[in-house]
């Protein structure tokens, strides 16, 4: 059995409908009408212990809602979640003892107190044995360079510092699974990189299973051998990054340096994406033709000096999916 099993997970919210017309506010107040809005329509996947999975999708796809159900915050409307043999919302207290959660957008630390005090309070909340707590705190202080601001009140930390402190706070009790919702949001390149290195390290060395949602494609490329891509509350892809590119990145580009600049270049099964002097970018669909056939075709008509085939970049692929809202 996998560590995390999700089957046909569903969540819909009832949202009060605003009415138009005269006295709309009064009508809304007196008799509310509710409309069911589906956030997660049907999501199924499994995660084995030790995996690092990127849970991605466009805004409003249902990422955060799924994470909130996995962490026991929200009660699913339907379907099934089993994590380490437990149902999160039913055995919430036992479940959350074994997981760590980091929300990029809000801190779980005690806002007005020195950072170290949050770590101390967590020791009592999770009843972490003193020695274990000390060892973890020392390790994280070194890895995340928390030392300089342990005595600083959380409200005075920079976003990057706060994020590092939140990460340490989520891991002090040795959770088996770490859930991260947008852990690098709003951070600069250096801060992002430090967090990525840390996540890779705790996954590798401590065997912590990591599930993360992100909009930062670099996070995925650097960290996640596997991605689960959701859109409109459904899983539309689950697998490796390379395979994602193959499946959704159908557009490849043949870049040809012609012998001389030509006005009209016509090739079957490809369109001209760009021209720059004698260099022509020919975009083609991998389903419609192969690079070999296209090269043969171009070579038969024109004199070629050089050529390269460009694969779609993963960033581009996912951005396309995000922008189109759907790939189906």
């Amino acid at each position, binding site marked *: 059995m996998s560590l995390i099993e999700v089957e046909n997970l569903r969540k819909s919210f009832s949202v009060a409908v605003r009415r138009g017309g005269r006295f709309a506010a009064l009508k809304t107040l007196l008799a509310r009408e509710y409309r069911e809005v589906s956030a997660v329509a049907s999501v199924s996947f499994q995660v084995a212990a030790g995996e690092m999975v990127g849970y991605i999708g466009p805004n409003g796809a249902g990422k955060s809602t799924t994470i909130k159900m996995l962490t026991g915050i929200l009660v699913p409307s339907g379907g099934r979640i089993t994590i380490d043999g437990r149902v999160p919302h039913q055995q919430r207290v036992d479940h959350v003892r074994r997981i760590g959660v980091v*929300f990029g957008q809000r801190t779980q630390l005690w806002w007005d107190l020195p950072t170290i005090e949050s770590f101390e309070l967590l020791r009592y909340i999770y009843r972490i044995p003193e020695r274990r707590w000390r060892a973890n705190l020392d390790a994280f202080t070194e890895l995340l360079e928390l030392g300089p601001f342990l005595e600083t*009140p959380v409200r005075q930390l920079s976003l990057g510092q706060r994020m590092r402190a939140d990460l340490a706070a989520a891991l002090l009790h040795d959770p088996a699974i770490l859930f991260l919702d947008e852990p690098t949001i709003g951070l600069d390149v250096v801060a992002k990189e430090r967090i990525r290195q840390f996540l890779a390290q705790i996954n590798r060395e401590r065997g912590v299973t990591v599930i993360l949602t992100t909009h930062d494609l670099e996070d995925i490329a650097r960290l996640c051998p596997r991605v689960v891509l959701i859109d409109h509350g459904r899983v539309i892809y689950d697998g490796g990054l390379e395979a994602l590119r193959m499946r959704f990145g159908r557009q490849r580009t043949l870049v040809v340096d012609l012998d001389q600049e030509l006005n009209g270049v016509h090739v079957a099964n490809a369109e001209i994406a760009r021209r720059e002097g004698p260099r022509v970018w020919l975009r083609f669909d991998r389903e419609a033709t192969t690079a070999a056939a296209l090269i043969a075709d171009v070579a038969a008509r024109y004199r070629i000096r050089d050529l390269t085939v460009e694969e779609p970049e993963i960033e581009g692929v996912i951005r396309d999916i995000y922008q189109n809202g759907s790939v189906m």
Partner: protein
Amino acid sequence: MVSLYFRLIGARIRAQMQYKVSFWMDLIGFGLVTGLEFASVAFLFGHFHAIGGWTLAEVALLYGLTSIAYSFAEMFGRGFDSPFERMMQQGTFDTILIRPLGSFFLVLASEFQLMRLGRTTQAILVLGYALLQLPIVWTPARLLLLPLTIVAGAAIYTGLIVIGATICFWTIKTPEVINIFTSGGAEAASYPLSIYNGWIRSTFLFIVPIAFANYPAALLLLGRTDPYGLPGWLAWAAPVAGALFCAAALGLWRVGVSKYQSVGN
């Protein structure tokens, strides 16, 4: 659990002390403002010598008991008050639910409003005045009745604040109507229950039992009889009323948590 509570509350108090000047100003200001409450009650006695047959000192006993209880509820139950509404609006209740402890406990331990000591101090002074003025025959049982009544009253007011918070799970905002019962109730309970009409009396006894915070205890201590036949021994039922009301509030809370919708990111 108890030691963890004090640890968490201690953290909150230390956090409040980060803003020392503001803290002391709040504390003193709050004491003065609540002091005006009893002053306005006392002012009435300048015109009437008794209200519903009760003298100023007797009304001071009612006021003192209910006001101490209410101040404790404000202090200990603060987490369920406006900070909880903020939690709902900002979705930070999420971070409560990811801790391996009951959500009720964590919200209770999330805030403690020390500044409400202003009301406590003022209410204790009024109660002290009443006890000095009134010819009460003290027995050990009657001495025990005072703290018992105050704790029961605090529990009932806390239950009310919790119910107000629980409504947030459906409406996001605590409806103002709950104030009718909390601060309004505390004020109404400063006068003898017998001056109110039937349905108000029933509400304060059986539905929102804040009458138990003072009235039966006052009847018993003063040896008065209630015009509607309410027995003085009912004072001993105050802890039961407090426990039942809190149990109801807690039950409602559980239902509310399961309806929690969080907020979008």
